[in-house]
């Protein structure tokens, strides 16, 4: 079985000077939820941008490695070509068209060759997952709450008919209740539509709850990876991403940890 | 302070005082001397046509420098530069005509009128940014030109105001060579004013406003004051250029101050290179000499007589084309090319400057 998405030894350089990602490899299998964890500046968003083809805007470039989608190399394609091949991004900010109504937000996309029937089916499905959107149909998206916006963003991405959904910071700025509902929906979507999901998260607790597999990035490298439960119980993750046991660690322990990370990398 | 500092190999200054001298390296001092010498000797070898060109360049340089101050440093876009030149020219013209005011009154008067207009042009900038600001200056340009035209028709000078040559200490300023030195003095003066403003607190404030207004305000910079100051200084200098233009041509008419003139000044700033005084001067030279170059080029073509009627149109088209080419392919302008050449030779055999380079 070929992997759905395969990132091999990816290296991304900003403005020909700053290496943000140095040799990241990761795999997303069909129908899998994969989490990408790490603190600020670890290279998560850059990796996501490299996959979705949005590097050019920040004067960044893939200098090494490859991104394969269903076996085809896509790192040089334009964003909309990548979208039409079935990778759709739910961005971190500006995720809806503010002056379009909710209904228009869902219409305003240009999916790859889909018949009208398929498109209609997707629209119905979306309204099933997020019944609230059907209620808000005529409302301008600029007036939605954060949670509703995130719903609309995910719904808008799904009507593009993706095979792989990239979600950047699902939980950012949302109440835990809303996050819980959204993650539940994502799991349903994965199960019923067979869409694989690559989740980028600051909050490891949220991501590891639903992820089949996780990667931990630091300084542009993968320092740890493994399936969800295993990663969740890993002592380092426990300590540094899930809040640990609550006791303060000595400076030396932290330093030791950092050194071991460097060694892995 | 005559410490010579190496230029490209790093940042060696150890005190703020080291930042201040305008001339920092031996090479700079030498080249400055050479340029000054060339400028002083030039009129004694030049034909009157060349002198005229030089005067036009100096005039354009004053305008371009002041626009660069405003747009390239303070980041306030203006499409109304021709309006300010017109204001200066009309001030000089009207004062000379109606009150018989001498040279040394009209020039400062033009500066004052320019400064006042600068406040008017600058007021929208307190509320508007970017495109809308550009549009508001464009609109003001039309208003100024309308007022000038109104004056002309109401006073019966429908073809324009004739301005007598200025008298300097008893004798009339007609000679081309004399004009050359007057213009040179004004241009150098403008350059020094700009340099001085830019290396001090004012220049830093402008640059801060340019890169991010909100952050600049958070740093305690009075946005409104500095924006208005930029407009006032720039407009006053421009108006002086306008007054000089009136005297130099001996004639003021609204036709000379079309929107195209504003665009020419903007083109100087762009073609020269945003955010560089050297760029403003290079741009002024380029844009002023360009039509003459085109005309000469066309004379070389076969059937030159037939093309004579089309010179104007060809000029227009070529100017537009050059502007497009610069905007698309060389947004850094002539200065960008110059800097690339410079760093190519300085850094050879390496390709890139290190990230934290000393002087840019």
């Amino acid at each position: 079985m070929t992997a759905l998405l395969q990132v091999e030894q990816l290296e991304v350089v900003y403005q020909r000077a700053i290496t943000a990602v140095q040799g990241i490899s990761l795999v997303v299998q069909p129908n899998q939820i994969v989490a990408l964890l790490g603190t600020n500046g670890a290279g998560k968003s850059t990796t996501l941008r490299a996959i979705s083809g949005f590097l050019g805007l920040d004067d960044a470039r893939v200098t090494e490695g490859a991104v394969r989608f269903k076996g085809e190399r896509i790192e040089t394609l334009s964003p909309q070509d990548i979208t039409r091949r079935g990778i759709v991004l739910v961005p971190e900010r500006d995720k809806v068209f503010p002056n379009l109504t909710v209904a228009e937000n869902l219409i305003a996309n240009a999916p790859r060759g889909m018949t009208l029937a398929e498109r209609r089916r997707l629209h119905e499905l979306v309204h099933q997952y997020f019944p609230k959107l059907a209620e808000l149909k005529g409302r301008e998206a600029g007036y939605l709450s954060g949670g509703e916006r995130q719903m609309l963003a995910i719904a808008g991405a799904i009507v593009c008919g993706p095979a792989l959904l990239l979600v950047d910071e699902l939980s950012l700025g949302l109440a835990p209740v809303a996050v819980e509902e959204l993650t539940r929906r994502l799991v349903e979507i994965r199960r019923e539509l067979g869409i694989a999901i690559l989740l980028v998260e600051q909050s490891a607790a949220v991501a590891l709850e639903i992820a089949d597999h996780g990667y931990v990035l630091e300084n542009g490298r993968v320092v740890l990876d493994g399936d969800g439960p295993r990663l969740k119980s890993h002592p380092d993750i426990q300590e540094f991403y899930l809040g640990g046991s609550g006791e303060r660690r000595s400076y030396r322990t932290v330093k030791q940890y950092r050194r071991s990370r460097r060694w892995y990398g | 302070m005559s410490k010579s500092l190496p230029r490209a190999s790093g940042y060696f200054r150890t005190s703020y005082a080291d930042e201040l001298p305008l001339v920092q390296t031996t090479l700079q001092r030498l080249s400055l001397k050479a340029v000054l010498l060339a400028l002083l000797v030039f009129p004694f070898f030049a034909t009157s046509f060349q002198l005229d060109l030089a005067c036009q360049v100096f005039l354009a340089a004053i305008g371009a420098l002041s626009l660069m101050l405003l747009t390239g440093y303070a980041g306030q876009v203006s499409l109304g530069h021709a309006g300010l030149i017109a204001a200066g020219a009309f001030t000089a013209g009207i004062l000379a005509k109606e009150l018989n005011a001498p040279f040394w009154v009209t020039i400062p008067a033009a500066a004052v009128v320019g400064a006042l207009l600068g406040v008017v042009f600058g007021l929208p900038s307190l509320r508007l940014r970017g495109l809308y600001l550009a549009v508001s200056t464009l609109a003001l340009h039309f208003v100024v030109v309308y007022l000038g035209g109104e004056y002309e028709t109401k006073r019966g000078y429908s073809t324009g105001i004739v301005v007598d040559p200025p008298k300097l200490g008893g004798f009339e300023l007609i000679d081309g060579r004399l004009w050359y030195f007057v213009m040179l003095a004004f241009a150098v003066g403008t350059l020094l004013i700009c340099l001085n403003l830019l290396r001090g607190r004012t220049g830093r404030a402008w640059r801060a406003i340019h890169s991010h207004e909100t952050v600049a305000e958070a740093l305690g910079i009075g946005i409104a004051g500095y924006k208005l100051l930029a407009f006032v200084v720039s407009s006053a200098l421009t108006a002086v250029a306008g007054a000089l233009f009136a005297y130099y041509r001996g004639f003021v008419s609204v036709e000379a101050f079309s929107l195209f003139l504003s665009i020419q000044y903007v083109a100087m700033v762009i073609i020269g290179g945003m955010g560089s005084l050297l760029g403003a001067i290079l741009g002024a030279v380029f844009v002023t000499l360009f039509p003459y170059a085109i005309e000469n080029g066309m004379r070389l073509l076969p059937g030159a007589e037939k093309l004579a009627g089309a010179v104007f149109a060809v000029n227009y088209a070529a100017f537009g084309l050059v502007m497009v080419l610069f905007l698309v392919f060389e947004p850094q302008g002539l200065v960008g090319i110059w800097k690339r050449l410079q760093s190519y030779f300085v850094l050879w055999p390496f390709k890139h400057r290190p990230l934290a380079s000393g002087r840019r």
Partner: protein
Amino acid sequence: MQLYVNIAVLASIYALIACGYVLIYRVSRVLNLAHGELMMLGSYLLLTTASLFTGHPYLAFAAAALLALVVGALVYLFLLRRMTGEMVLAAVLTTVALGILLRGVMVLIWSASQQYPREALGWANPAIALPGGARISTFALLLILSTAAVYLSLFVFLRFSRWGIRMRAAGQNPLLAAQRGISLHGVYALAWGLSTFTGGLAGMLLAMDSGLDGTMVVIGLKAFPAALVGGLDSLVGALLGSLIIAAAEIFLIHHVDPLLSDVVPFLVLIAMLVIRPWGLLGTKEELDRV
């Protein structure tokens, strides 16, 4: 009465031109200052097609309109496409430069003298008497009708068609639009094409009504305050702005001073920028985007 007819005609001229400014601005945040030149180019194209298809005036007209559409799209594809991602102002200056270039080229090709495409097409322009003693020329009436038709179809297009919604989406959030698979270049080229088409249409009708020479650019430039007064991102606003500016212009010319003609639109614009910079019906946050 004649005064009101004049206002209606002038307002519809401005409105037909202004919708081109609005279209491009709304979709790509670029103020196209070459619109006046492109509009003039449209009417010169009509002159050429009229001499190509002698005896088939309708065909000539349709061909010229189609050519205007193509020219607009080409301007985007070959020039403005390179400016995407650059500063907004750089793009605006590019259009200014394009305008200068076009003006020179047009004089070179078609000469600067006054020309009459209507006669080349072999159409007459009789005046029609209106109730109330006013008169209106046939092509002026046609101009009013075309403006109404163009606005109506643009409204329906942007509101209900898939491509129209995509255009609005791209205007609001280009990044997201690209992420949803919308081809930004396609949408922008379409906007430029439509804008040049409507501008060209205005130019052609105007040239048929009153002849064609270099001063047409001035009319194009005077229409852009109309777009701004109404709000640069609003079509209805452009309509309203055109009406206000046309009324102000005609009344002031009539009652105060004919010399004011060229400056009135800009005076109204300054007043608007002082009171309500985002225009009558524009969106307020527009100001922070540019």
